[in-house]
């Protein structure tokens, strides 16, 4: 039986792609005051950014409940005897804990393994994509767990934020605290290190930011997969994909929207690039 893969909505895997890969995506919840929305199920990215800019209420987010995971485990257990769950970094969200808790509540016979990817966005989305393909080609659970754990150190996410405003408000910013409060308008370049947001450097313009993302990805011509993500600027993302396509096969570059859960901190205009390095032979 094919191993079934579950991930959360922070992986930024589009619903079409999830269907194609047989991946189940469990959404996190976005809250505006007491109004709750399932990440990109009951709120679109556009609606979210519109409210982010116009609402007086500051949005927050919460992890899926263990019950949400139990439900998915139960459904999938009818089709498979092995499930792999890959979540975003446990340091940024309790999603990993929910998945674990659900495993304890699950009564079925199916084997379940849960991995904290220590990453966010396509930083683990690409790992999920690649793992799902391996599962479709017949890889078993132990093999996949082993592969994912190794792949985690080969996944590199670089994020450009167009403004520090939202990062400052959210509070959950790990080591990026030092970037706040710049008196000049500064565009931070961030990464995820040891499961937390960490600063890389700072630039002063969007074009410098895009150059940085491009040059970063260009440094990995032998990568397995790449991803370009955007918050509110799909056109910029297209341009970046086109630029990268001159140095890397276009069919291995994924384009996706950044989850509103990350958007709470990144704000409009954020962009990201992920490189999943190929396995060293």
């Amino acid at each position, binding site marked *: 039986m094919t191993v079934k893969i579950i991930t959360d909505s922070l992986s930024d895997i589009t619903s079409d792609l999830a269907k194609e890969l047989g991946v189940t995506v469990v959404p996190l919840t976005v809250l505006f*005051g*007491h109004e709750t929305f399932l990440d990109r199920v009951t709120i679109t990215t556009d609606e979210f950014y519109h409210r982010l800019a116009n609402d007086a209420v500051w949005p927050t987010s919460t992890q899926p409940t263990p019950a949400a995971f139990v439900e998915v485990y139960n459904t999938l257990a009818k089709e498979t005897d092995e499930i792999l769950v890959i979540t975003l970094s446990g340091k940024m969200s309790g999603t990993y804990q929910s998945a674990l808790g659900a495993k304890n509540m699950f009564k079925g016979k199916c084997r379940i393994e849960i991995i904290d990817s220590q990453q966010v966005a396509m930083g683990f989305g690409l790992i999920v994509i690649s793992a799902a393909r391996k599962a479709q080609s017949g890889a078993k659970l132990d093999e996949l767990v082993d592969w994912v754990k190794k792949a985690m150190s080969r996944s590199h996410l670089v994020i450009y934020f167009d403004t520090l405003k939202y990062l400052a408000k959210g509070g959950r910013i790990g080591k990026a605290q030092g970037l706040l409060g710049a008196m000049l*308008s500064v565009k931070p370049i961030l990464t995820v290190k040891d499961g937390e947001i960490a600063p890389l450097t700072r630039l002063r313009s969007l074009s410098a930011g895009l150059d940085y993302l491009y040059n970063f990805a260009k440094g990995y011509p032998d990568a397995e997969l790449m991803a370009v993500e955007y918050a509110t600027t799909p056109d910029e993302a297209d341009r970046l994909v086109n630029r990268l396509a001159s140095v890397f096969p276009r069919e291995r570059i994924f384009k996706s929207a950044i989850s509103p859960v990350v958007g709470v901190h990144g704000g409009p205009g954020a962009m990201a690039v992920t490189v999943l390095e190929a396995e060293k032979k």
Partner: protein
Amino acid sequence: MKQVETINGRELKEMLATATSWLEKSASDIDALNVFPVPDGDTGTNMLLTMRSSVDEANQTADSSAGGVAQAIARGALLGARGNSGVILSQIWRGLAEGLQDKTSFNGADFALAMHQASVTAYKGISNPVEGTILTVVKDAASAGQAQVAKGDANLISVLEAIVSAANESVANTPTLLPVLKDAGVVDAGGQGLYTILEGALRYLRGEAEQMQFRKPLIIASSLPQPTRVLRISPKEEKPFGYCTEFLLKGSGFNQDKIKTKLKKDGESLIVVGDDNATRVHIHTEDPGKIIRYATSLGTVHQVSIRNMDEQHQDYLEMQKDRTPEVDIATIAVVAGEGLADVFTSLGTTAIVSGGQTMNPSTKELLQAVKSVKSDKVILLPNNKNIILTAQQLQSLTDKKVEIVPTETIPQGVAALLAFDYEADFQTNAKLMQEAKSSVRTIEITRAVRGAHLNGLNIKKKQTIGLLDGELLVAGKDPLDILTKMLARLDLANTEIITIYYGADTDPAEAEEVNANIREQYPRLQVEVIQGGQPYYNYIVSIE
């Protein structure tokens, strides 16, 4: 959408209890926000104790109307108020109680009005209200509440949401209003405490009591926190702080205004609040005996607390020393002007040495900075041609590894500092910063110190001159005119950002005019104007 139209006295009690336990969860975190000489050393704890006293009093009252419960809360707060923030909190409750007087239950509009009264009463109790404290937060929160009602949505939850959201922003903004907070890179502790209480109340209304057990209140990040505790090489003068003195006065026929007038000359941060038979006094004085003697002549004195603030200050300084962060790679910048120092600080420099044109720091001062930073790898940005040579002496004077990135102007220094890569090693960073410095061009507008013939120009002493990357290009009269001429000479096709730092002697209005001119001429460019406060230079302009 959940609606709560009104709440009654019983619900108000529950709301108070929920808000108090919410505050309890972060009381110690709020304590940690304290900066001296913000008077009380443990704001979170003090506010919590004040709230507990309110809860006790509210629970004892037989009155079940919202107005009656509010009165009890206010009374409890006054009797149990601890510290400066506790006393102000008691005034906020008192104002709220006045606003809710005679009400069996209240709705969003009532609450917004009562918050307004709370803000007014809080300000009234203080002789010298300081902005950037709990006072500003209650004021901002109250206006947001009223604005929400004015929008036509008086649902209690919506009103409180607007209040909490405004309180959050107001707290984050406190460091921009109060320099002592800015220097310490924290938000105001009292403001944070009030935010937490309001947020707890909102969560009660939303019916989140269950979830609150597993959560902790958010400690708001400053809108301009200090990325690192920056070392400033320039000693500051110190004056004694005296004793923080507070007590509760019981008796009858108290007139707070009279007590205030009497005590005003005896100290600072005076607060006198209360009613006819209970009054709370808080003052920083060098002679607490005199204050107490006066108080005992009016009534009986309770809950006396006298704390030596100079001693506290010493402890605070010791604590600060330990708090200077250890960094892997330290950066030291030579900067003149408060505004420019802030710019470098906000970009994460570890230490700043005052100096620049015509006031070059000595090797000794630079060495002191190098020795003081908690890192054995130091990158130094001289930001002036004449300091580079001095800086280069350092390498032979210390065991620490020192790299000089020979920045000749402030914009070069900023560009270099921005390029700092948090993940890269020492040598790579020195290289990255070196490369970045050439990515900007600098225009400086200053006055000639003497007459000269240079580059075909006949320059008179004190004439305004313009330099591009250190080279004298234009001389004339009007700084604005010279700057325009110089920009016209540059090919700005590939330029994206122009940052203008105006000097200590430059009129901000003139700087705005420069800003408007450039925006008009080059609408494509992003233009920023910052008060650099540098001496000698009317303008330092960065073109990148």
